[in-house]
């Protein structure tokens, strides 16, 4: 079942989008699309079905916090878990993300094992694994 889940990877750096997509693929999650900022991500989320969002925070146009807020106030999207993967290491940002409904928070640079663990934990909590 987990292999059929659709991921949306949101990051303004194409290198990071490729890294995250490749890591997800290595972990068995082969269905993944990508978006370069919050605006593009919201558009994709509203036009297609996704089960999981992995998002950066510091992005142009719409940052990760704004994207998270938009997802959580949208009745059709709010069930989708959002895992923040970011270089923002301030404690206040981590707490803010959790308060706004982020399912997890990973600080860059991270390891393959960390991403695997967090995704797996979130999916287990949601009964998707």
């Amino acid at each position, binding site marked *: 079942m987990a292999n059929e889940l659709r991921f949306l990877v949101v*990051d303004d*750096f194409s*290198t*990071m989008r490729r*890294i995250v997509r*490749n*890591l997800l693929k*290595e972990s068995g999650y082969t269905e993944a699309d990508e978006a370069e900022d919050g605006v593009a991500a919201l558009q994709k989320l509203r036009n297609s079905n996704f089960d999981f969002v992995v998002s950066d*925070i*510091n992005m142009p146009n719409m*940052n990760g916090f704004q994207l998270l807020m938009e997802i959580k106030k949208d009745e059709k999207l709010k069930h989708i878990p959002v895992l923040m993967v970011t*270089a*923002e*290491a*301030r*404690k*206040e*940002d*981590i*707490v803010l993300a*959790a308060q706004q409904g982020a399912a997890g*928070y*990973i*600080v*860059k*640079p*991270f*390891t*393959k094992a*960390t991403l695997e663990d967090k995704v797996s934990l979130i999916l287990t909590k949601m009964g998707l694994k």
Partner: protein
Amino acid sequence: MQSINPTPAVSITVPPDIHQSIGMLTRQLHDSLNGLGLTDKVKGWAGELPDAKSRLSYIARLTGEAAEKVLNRVDQAKAQHDHIAAETRRIGVLIVKDPVAAVAKGHVMNFLTDVEQSTKQIDQHLTEIMMAQDFHDLTGQVIAKVVNLAANIEEQLLQLLIQTAPADAVVKASAPVAEYQPALAGPVVNPAGNPDVVTGQSEVDDLLASLGF
């Protein structure tokens, strides 16, 4: 003991009016900065420039570490690749010489196990090489901050130049540089001793757990 001669090797004769001119220019600059309300901004730059310096050091460190990591992993992967190539040649000779014995004595099976282990390890090296590319994202964010600082200083200096230029030397200024908008904090270049930031994933997990998330 040799005595030290306090006289400079080259004596430069400075006309007294030069000192006066420098003094006047300094006074003019000081008054202009005050008049334009830029004194505080200049003080701000003074604080931000060392920060920019440490950000550039961070970039140098991260790119250096990434290059080192990639080269090490490539060396290891190439060694394993060479090993597989040599073993393939060796087992080929054994099979050509006596195919039945090559199988019966376990040479073929050992070779297959060896190949499987080596390819697993090579795959790990490739993953690590891929992960090392994350420096592009982290340094990119830091570079953007330094560029913003430089653009900000350039804009303020340009304004100062325009407003203090003699009336007959006024030229049309080009379009102003976009207003400096501080982004989120971005990568922490100096985490040591800063209680407001986390230094790794375990601290993130501990923080969230302590808050019940």
